[in-house]
């Protein structure tokens, strides 16, 4: 994933989860609708934020094989 894309995804999910919190508290959207959003959104936000900030630039490494 490109860092720029990851940044956009992280921002999108973060903003969506944050903004929709207010209608949920106000009772406009149901618990499970907002819950489904969180179940999908929270891990995506977490990983996308990680990719946006700390994704490695160089070549990948081999797995650890013990020495």
């Amino acid at each position, binding site marked *: 994933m490109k860092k720029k894309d990851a940044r956009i995804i992280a921002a999108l999910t973060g903003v969506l989860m944050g903004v929709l919190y207010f209608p949920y508290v106000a009772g406009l959207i149901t618990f499970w609708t907002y819950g489904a959003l969180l179940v999908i959104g929270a*891990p995506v936000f977490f*990983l996308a934020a990680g990719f946006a900030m700390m994704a490695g630039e160089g070549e990948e490494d081999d797995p650890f094989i013990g020495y």
Partner: protein
Amino acid sequence: MIPEILAALFFGLLLLGLHRKVVARIQKRPGPPVWQEFLHAAKFFWKQTWVPKTASSLMFVGIVLVGIGIWVAALLVVIAGGNILIIFGIYMLQKIVEHGFGLSSGSPYGKFGGVRSVISAASEIPLFVSVAAIALFTHSLALQDIVAYQAVHGPLLLIVPPAAFAMFLVLLSKMPGGPFSVVEGKELVSGYKTEHFGFFRAGLYVCDGLKTTVLLWTFVLVFIGGLPTAGFIIVMVILMIILSFTCALTPMLTPFDSVTLQTLVTGAMLVYVGCIAAMGVPG
């Protein structure tokens, strides 16, 4: 809901830190500070990360998504007082998440961790027998019904102590360093976690934190009943300390010994539930 999730995550990581502290004190070590696990998670999140060359990249990344997602879902189910079978289903899915972590990287150590995690699948079976025992009394598996039942009849811990014991064993099998924690044995480097570093590992800490809170909370809800928030926190801390003592004072079993022991417990539980069902439920 976001505040609840963050609180549960933070509290779960603190509980795990407490676990390490208690175990260390029993072993006459000073031990890390209680917020050590939280520091770990934060540290890992700000490390450079990439996917190993040999890994199945989609699986490697996707399994972190699944891991966090299912435990957020489990927490929401507990908050909503939903069905206890869903929580236990998610708990069993944690097994698949472990396989995914271990197998997706191509590392032999991760693989061993994953295979160990298949072997230890017996740890889930006592769960269902205790669920059956609970259902015999409450006639429902929704958490709110179970809590309501206990408000009338007193805690299930006193009514069906063997079921509580079976579930305690299940909790124990998910504690680091416990007798049944064969998946994370020290001879496996870091077991299924070996290849997930950087923010993937931070994601694993998020899973662990949520998992600890959800499991302990469910135990308290199912066997003790509804309490005020402070009461929940106190009881969960006490439960954690009991678990830590058990972990520190028991040796780790070999994988198949742990399977045998858990199967025997399940057998005993089955006989017990059979007896209850045959004699008829009082009340």
